[in-house]
C-alpha cells in the first residue's frame, strides 16, 4: 500500500512542479518568478522526503534540510535585492 501511495504522491508533486515551472517561465513580473522559485524549493523538499521513504533511508534528510535553509535565504536575498537594490546594507 505504501509503495502505491508514494508513487501517487510523486505524481502529484511532479504535477505541482510543472505548474511552478510554468509560472517561473511566464510570470509577468520578477516577484512572481521569485514566488515560483520559492515554491519549487519547498516541493523539492517534498521530493527528497518521498525518495527517502521509497528507498527507506534517512540519508536524504540532511539534503532536505539544507534545501530548506538555502531556499529561505535565497528568497529573502532576492526579495531584498528587489526592494532595496542591495542585499547587505
Amino acid at each position, binding site marked *: 500500500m505504501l509503495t502505491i*501511495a508514494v508513487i501517487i*504522491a510523486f505524481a502529484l508533486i511532479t504535477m*505541482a512542479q510543472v505548474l511552478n515551472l510554468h509560472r517561473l517561465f511566464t510570470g509577468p513580473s520578477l516577484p512572481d518568478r521569485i514566488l515560483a522559485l520559492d515554491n519549487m524549493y519547498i516541493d523539492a523538499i517534498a521530493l527528497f522526503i518521498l525518495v527517502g*521513504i521509497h528507498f527507506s533511508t534517512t540519508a536524504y534528510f540532511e539534503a532536505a534540510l539544507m534545501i530548506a535553509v538555502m531556499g529561505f535565504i535565497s528568497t529573502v536575498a532576492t526579495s*531584498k535585492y528587489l526592494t532595496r537594490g542591495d542585499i547587505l546594507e
Partner: protein
Amino acid sequence: MVVVEFVVSFFLILGAFFALTGSIGLYRMTDFFSRLHGPTKSTTLGVGGMALASAVYFSFQGNGISLHEVLITLFLFITAPVSAHFMAKAARHQRMHENKAALPPGCEKKTGPHV
C-alpha cells in the same frame, strides 16, 4: 504495522494534495498578491505534513524513534510567513498593487530599479 502504513500513506497523499493545491493557486490566480496565498499556506502545510509522515514511518522501522524530520516542519512553518512578507514587500515596492492601466505611459518605468 498495517495501521502505521495506512497512516503514513494517508498523510503522504493528503500532503501531496495540499502541495498541488498551492501550485494550482500559483498557476490560476490573476494577480501577484492572490498568487501569494496558495504557496504560503497550502504548500507549507502539505510539505510539513509529509515530513511528519516521514517521521512516523522511520520511527516504526525498528531503529528507535526518529524525530528529526520534525525540524523540517518547524523550519518551514517559521520561514513561510517571513519569506511571504519579504516577497509582498518587494512587490509593493514595485507598485504592483496599483492599477498599471490607470497610469500614463512611461510612469511604470520609474517604479523600481530592476523591473
